[in-house]
């Protein structure tokens, strides 16, 4: 795995992400500054980490989405390259037009920082091959704007094409408003692009990969990515 982690001013989860990528893949990812215009040669995974790029000014992710490196990410994604956006990374991907929809203020107006349960809808993607379809995983969230919404036509398309990859659920996998902490439409926690090579998700799988932290449910995503990239190579 030759991962590149994008770094914008105000991002604060890039080191967690880099650490996880190193632990799982054995390789240190490249850290790529937002003013760069090219990704390192041989990059096979671009990761946009969480945080508060540009202090969430204007709209979450709006300014980062228009920075020079994002043109390179657009070109790379157009060629089928894998892109993972977590939390602010998901917001940036939506603002950049790489994923549809938008992340609005949480329904209860609070910043929510705790573990949530996610139902993995599909295991046949490079991002989720380390899980079983229908599996429930426990991972943390930390966001004030994670309430996913798009127009009705877009939601119908996402659902029809099986592009909702993660949903908030109860510990036993039921989709229930009581377990949809931010009010996202259809409890959507993560979606992929039309080609399936760009994934955006609000929760932080990178924070649950070490037994010493207590939970390792996030490992599946990164282990699966390593496997998918090995197979492609």
């Amino acid at each position: 795995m030759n991962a590149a982690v994008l770094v914008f001013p105000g991002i604060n989860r890039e080191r967690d992400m880099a650490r996880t990528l190193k632990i799982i893949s054995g390789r240190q990812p490249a850290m790529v500054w937002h003013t760069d215009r090219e990704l390192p040669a041989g990059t096979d995974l671009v990761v946009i980490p969480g945080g508060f790029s540009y202090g969430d000014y204007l709209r979450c992710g709006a300014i980062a989405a228009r920075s020079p490196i994002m043109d390179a990410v657009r070109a790379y994604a157009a060629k089928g390259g894998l892109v993972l956006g977590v939390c602010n990374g998901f917001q940036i991907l939506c603002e950049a037009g790489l994923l549809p929809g938008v992340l609005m203020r949480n329904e209860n107006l609070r910043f929510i920082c705790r573990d949530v349960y996610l139902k993995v809808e599909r295991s046949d993607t490079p991002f989720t091959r380390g899980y079983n379809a229908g599996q429930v995983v426990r991972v943390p969230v930390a966001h004030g704007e994670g309430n996913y919404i798009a127009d009705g036509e877009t939601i119908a398309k996402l659902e029809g094409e099986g592009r909702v990859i993660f949903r908030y659920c109860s510990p036993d996998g039921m989709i229930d408003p009581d377990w949809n902490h931010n009010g996202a439409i259809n409890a959507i926690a993560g979606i992929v692009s039309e080609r399936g090579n760009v994934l955006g998700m609000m929760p932080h799988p990178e924070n649950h990969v070490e037994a010493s932290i207590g939970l390792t449910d996030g490992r599946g995503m990164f282990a699966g990515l390593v496997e998918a990239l090995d197979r492609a190579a």
Partner: protein
Amino acid sequence: MKARVTVTLKSGILDPQGKAIEGALRSLGLSGVTAVRQGKVFDIELEGADKAKAEALLKQAADKLLANTVIENYKVDVVG
């Protein structure tokens, strides 16, 4: 030249902040408020004196950055 771009949420988009403000107004005893929608105002200063040019420029600015047209509408007013 001075101009103002007003960005508002499209109708039908849930506005939790507007709802909270609405509730706060009510708790202040300001009765009669039936709905609040929150938006943004950008006061912008521009070079030149061509109003049509300024409008075209600000439309671009709104489409490219100031508004997220998935959820927001905008209005451009060149004050002169």
